[in-house]
């Protein structure tokens, strides 16, 4: 009986939309197949990289995956507590390898960068957004190679994400799912990948 009234007063969303949403969710996990521990180590690595440039509040950092209209995006929301000035003088040391390798196959960074001249500190409010590789553009042919300088696709100033007035770094990795990327890879890119040191293996002497 309640169903009968609900039918008139509380129309459910059409099941087609539900199907679409469910499908998107299931395909997201099909493609990413990221286990929770992999996400955790991704988060750790991400924080390690960013903290080489700015001081961050690790306890309140948040890494999530989101699916948008036509893409899957990784969102990292990381509060900044300060800026490391010395980074301008001496180039930062390379990050340790191992944990990155754990996710290199399923979540491949085409480019990962945070603007070293983060303006976050200067205004006290700005944050840096690094948005990478859009969905329909062909995947950039850089692999996550250690010996290549990361290319910053775009960086823009934005207000604090959480509205608390605290500066944050938010990194967005957006793009097609790993499978599509692999298919688009040209022979040249494959060759390049072979020449560089794969992240999921220890570097050979």
């Amino acid at each position, binding site marked *: 009986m309640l169903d009968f009234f609900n039918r008139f007063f509380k129309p459910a969303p*059409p*099941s*087609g939309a539900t*199907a*679409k949403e469910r*499908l998107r969710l299931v*395909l997201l996990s*099909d493609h990413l197949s990221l286990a929770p521990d992999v996400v955790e180590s991704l988060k750790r690595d991400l924080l390690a990289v960013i903290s080489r440039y700015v001081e961050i509040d690790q306890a309140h950092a948040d890494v999530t995956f989101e699916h948008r209209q036509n893409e899957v995006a990784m969102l990292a929301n990381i509060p900044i507590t300060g800026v490391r000035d010395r980074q301008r003088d001496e180039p930062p040391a390379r990050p340790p390898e191992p944990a990155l390798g754990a996710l290199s196959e399923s979540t491949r960074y085409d480019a990962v960068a945070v603007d070293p001249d983060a303006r976050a500190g200067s205004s006290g409010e700005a944050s840096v957004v690094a948005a990478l590789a859009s969905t329909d553009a062909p995947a950039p042919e850089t692999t996550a190679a250690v010996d290549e300088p990361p290319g910053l696709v775009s960086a823009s100033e934005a207000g604090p994400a959480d509205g608390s007035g605290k500066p944050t770094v938010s990194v967005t990795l957006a793009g097609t799912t790993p499978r599509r990327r692999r298919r688009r890879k040209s022979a040249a890119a494959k060759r390049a990948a072979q020449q560089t040191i794969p992240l999921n293996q220890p570097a050979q002497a």
Partner: protein
Amino acid sequence: MVMRAFEEPAPAGEAEAAAPLGRAIVITSGKGGVGKTTTTANVGVALAARGARVVLVDADVGLRNLDLVLGLESRVKFHLLDVLEEKATLDEALVRDKRSENLHLLAAAQTREKEEVDTAQMKALVERLRARFDYVLIDCPAGIEMGFKNAVAGAQHAIVVCTPEVSAVRDADRVVGLLPNGWRPELIINRLRPQLVKRGKMLSVDDVNGILRLPLLGVIADEPSIIVATNRGEPVALDLYSETGYAYRAIAAKLAGESVPAPSVRVPNTGLFSKLGSLFGGRS
């Protein structure tokens, strides 16, 4: 004399000159029951009706059905494995369609298993067929195991058949990932029910292809005439009065390189009663 040669499309013999090879296209889906066989039959019939030399290969070893959909079940004497094992020549095994002399069928073995064929054999067979036909359409079995691998082995192109259902889309997505690198499979969305889509109760063409993102080859509505046609063993593609028949012919034209209007499916006119029904009918 040259014209005469074109009028005799039926393959004359095994030894064929170095003519340009035909296209081998695998029709696949991952999920079963989405209409691969019906699609293969109808696209093949439509291509043959355009004058192309077409052979349909049933790669679903153990579950032969393409002969039935085409109404050729009584003519099948030898099958694919007979040819591979050289128990029959290719000419003996090829069944000519009763409606078109351009169309041939190579049936699957019904009492054998998919594992008895290997990819190298399939590749060689498809190569032989390509020398003699303009189109080699391979009806792929459901699944992603040996049968799928064999069906894909000799092909250069794939048509993915998908229905607007979550399970079919997920499987189609998986299958696309398993096709060889560099392929650009085309999509046929089958069994679409325009009225349901209109009411938001079924995934639309855009919903499906928003996820799969493949070139859209065609859209086939879920329509009684296909069931009737299959009952009779007469592909609907030959029915000039059927919209579905038209849709299949448009797919054939597109495959042949013609530019055709973007696929669309008309929402059938609904009578007063069905409108009343949808007004009061159950949601979702």
